[in-house]
C-alpha cells in the first residue's frame, strides 16, 4: 500500500502580515558604533576581494549558524529606503527566511519583498537567485564556514598562512584525489572558487550550479560568517573562477526533468517526494523565479495554468 500525498499546485506564500516595529532598539538592531565597525570590515573586504576580514561579530538574537553573519552585514548596510528580500534554499517562505525577514521588518521597519527584481538587498542562504542581479542590488550570503581550506587544514593559524603565501597546492591535490578516486570532482556545493586571480574563497554552501553566476556579477556580493567572525566580499564585475583542471573542466548540475510546475529547464530543481513508493517531482528551488514564470503563462507537467488575479494563501 502506498500513501499518496496530493501534489498541490504551487501557491504564492501568504504575504507576511505587517509586522509591528519594536521599541527600545536601534534601527536594524545593532548600535551605530557596531555598524561602523562592520562597514569598515566590509570596505576592507571589497578592497581585497576574497580575503577573509576578521571582525568583532556580535551575539545576535538568533542562534549562531542560523544567519547571524548575514544579518550583521545586512544590518550594517541597510537603510530606510531599502527593500529587503530574504531567501533560504532559494525560497522566501522557508521558516528561517521568514524569521529573518520579520526581524528586519520589526527592527528596521523596511519594506520587504519576495520579488528578486524589486529588492535592493537580498540576504540568502544556500542559493543565488536565478534572475540575473543588477548593479543596484547587493547580495548578502550567510556563511557557516568561511575558510575554503578548512577541510584540508583544521587550524586557522595554518590556513591564514596558506592564504598569505598563496599556497594553494593542497586544494588542487584534494580535488585531484577526488578525480583519482571517483573519476570526477564530487564536490556538489560550497565548491571552491578563486577570486580576482588571487584568494581562494568559499562561496558558502550554494550548489556548484550557482558558481558561474558569481563571475562578473553586476551586484556587490557580501559574505558574513557570524560565529567564525569573518566578513569577505566580491566587488561588482569581478572574476570568480571555480577551481578545475584542463582535462576535468568545471561542470554544473543538470537534470533530465523540468520543473513540474513552470516547466523551467534552466533552473536549479528540488526533488519533492510525493509518496512512499518512489514517486517524486521536481520543482524550482527559486520560488520567485517559478512563480514569475507561471504568472507569465509557463506551465509544467503538473502545474495548473494560472490566472494572474488568483492569489491564494499557503498553509
Amino acid at each position, binding site marked *: 500500500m502506498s500513501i499518496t500525498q496530493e501534489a498541490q499546485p504551487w501557491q504564492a506564500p501568504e504575504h507576511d502580515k505587517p509586522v509591528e516595529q519594536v521599541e527600545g532598539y536601534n534601527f536594524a538592531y545593532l548600535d551605530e558604533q557596531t555598524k561602523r565597525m562592520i562597514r569598515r570590515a566590509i570596505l576592507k573586504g571589497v578592497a581585497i576581494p576574497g580575503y577573509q576580514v576578521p571582525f568583532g561579530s556580535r551575539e545576535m538574537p538568533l542562534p549562531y549558524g542560523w544567519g547571524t553573519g548575514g544579518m550583521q552585514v545586512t544590518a550594517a548596510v541597510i537603510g530606510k529606503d531599502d527593500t529587503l528580500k530574504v531567501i533560504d534554499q532559494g525560497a522566501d517562505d522557508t521558516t528561517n527566511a521568514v524569521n529573518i525577514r520579520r526581524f528586519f521588518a520589526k527592527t528596521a521597519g523596511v519594506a520587504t519583498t519576495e520579488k528578486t527584481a524589486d529588492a535592493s538587498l537580498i540576504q540568502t542562504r544556500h542559493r543565488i537567485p536565478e534572475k540575473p542581479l543588477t548593479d543596484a542590488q547587493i547580495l548578502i550570503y550567510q556563511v557557516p564556514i568561511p575558510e575554503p581550506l578548512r577541510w584540508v587544514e583544521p587550524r586557522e593559524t595554518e590556513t591564514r598562512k596558506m592564504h598569505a603565501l598563496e599556497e594553494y597546492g593542497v586544494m588542487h591535490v584534494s580535488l585531484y584525489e577526488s578525480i583519482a578516486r571517483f573519476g570526477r570532482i564530487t564536490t556538489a556545493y560550497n565548491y571552491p572558487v578563486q577570486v580576482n586571480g588571487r584568494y581562494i574563497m568559499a562561496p558558502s554552501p550554494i550548489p556548484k550550479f550557482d558558481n558561474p553566476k558569481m563571475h562578473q556579477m553586476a551586484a556587490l556580493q557580501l559574505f558574513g560568517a557570524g*560565529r567564525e567572525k569573518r566578513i569577505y566580499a566580491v566587488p561588482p564585475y569581478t572574476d570568480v573562477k571555480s577551481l578545475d583542471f584542463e582535462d576535468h573542466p568545471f561542470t554544473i548540475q543538470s537534470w533530465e526533468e523540468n520543473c513540474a510546475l513552470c516547466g523551467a529547464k534552466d533552473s536549479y530543481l528540488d526533488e519533492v517526494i*510525493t509518496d512512499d513508493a518512489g514517486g517524486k517531482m521536481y520543482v524550482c528551488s527559486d520560488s520567485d523565479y517559478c512563480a514569475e514564470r507561471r504568472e507569465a503563462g509557463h506551465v509544467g507537467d503538473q502545474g495548473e495554468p494560472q490566472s494572474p488575479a488568483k492569489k491564494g494563501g499557503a498553509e
Partner: protein
Amino acid sequence: MYVAVKGGDKAIENSLRYLADVRRGDRRVPELTVQQIREQLPLAVDRVMTEGALYDPDLAALAIKQANGDIQEAVFLLRAYRTTLPRFGASQAIDTGAMQIRRRISATYKDLPGGQILGPSFDYTHRLLDFTLAANGETPEAPKSEEPVADGMPRVADILDHEGLIELDLPDDEDGPVPDLTRDSVTFPADRATRLQNLARGDEGFLLALGYSTQRGFGNNHPFAGEIRMGELAITFEPEELGFEIEIGEITVTECQMVNQFKGSAKVPPQFTRGYGLTFGHCERKAMSMALVDRALRAKEFGEEITAPAQDEEFVLYHSDNVEASGFVQHLKLPHYVDFQGELVTVRELRKEIEAREAAELTDDDELAAAE
C-alpha cells in the same frame, strides 16, 4: 503545501504559542516567579550569569524562566541582551584578597591564616534524596558563627610567593588596553588575558571534560587545589570626568588557584606554576575546571610538549563557547535540501557510471565467450 519544512508566519506563531504554553505547564500548579528562581535556584542563576558574561541575578532568573529551565538557552538569552548594552569602560581590577569570605578552603595546607571556612557546599552532603523537601518542609535558618570571619585572609598563592616557590603573578601591562573578545575576533597565539576571558565564558561541561582529561594523562600538570574561595567583592569604577574611583556595586565570585608542579627550565629554577579560574557567583566546579585548562594552555610558555586537546589553544578556544556550539550543531535542523539535491545528483551520476562500466564488462565477457 507539499514541503513539510516550509512554514509561513502562522506556523511559526503557533509554535511560539505552544512553547509558551509548555513553559507554563499545568495551570493548577502556581506559576514560578522570577524572584523564586533567583532565590531558590541560585546556582543555576550563577551559571547563567557566568557563561552569559553578565552579572545580573534578576535578568539571569528571568532568562531561566523564559528558557523553560534550559540553562544553555538562558545563557544565550542573556548574551543576546548583553551585546546590546553600551560600554562605559572597564572597572578597576578586583582584589580577591579583599574578599568578604563565605567559603575558603585549601588542599595544600592543613591550617593557614584565616583558617578553612567551609561555607555552603555540597561537598559534605550525603547524596540521599531528601523527601522532606518534597513534602515542603520548612528549612531552619543556618546558625551564625559567634565570632566573625578573620579580616586578614591571605591568598594561599601569596603565602608561597614569600619564598619564591611559585611563579610571580604579574599583570601583563596595567596601563595597557584590556583585550575584549566580545569586541574583537580572537587571533592566535592568544594572550593569557584573552584565553581567560574565553574560559570564563566557556561551557562548564566542556571545561569539566577537558580539565578531567588533563588529570587522566592528556596533558597532565600535577595540580593541587591551592585555594578555592567564594565571597563578595566591591566593584569600583573610575569615570574619566571624576578622576577618582567610586564603588558601583558588589558581586559574588568564586576563585580557584591551582598550584602545579614544574620541573624548571634553563632559565627558571624549579618552582610551582599557577592555573587560574574565576567565575561569577558560586560556580566551584567551573572555577576548578577553568584553572586546570588555563594551566594546560600555558604549555608553550613553559616549553612543554603540546600533545593533548586541553593544551591546544585553537581547539579549546574555538570550541568552548556553548552559544556558538549550540547554534552551529542545531543549525543542522535548518533545511539543507538544495545541497542535499546536489549530493543526490552526484551520487546518482557516480552510480550510473559504475553500472554502465559493469554492463560493458559483462558484454565484453559475453563476446569473448561467444568468440571462443
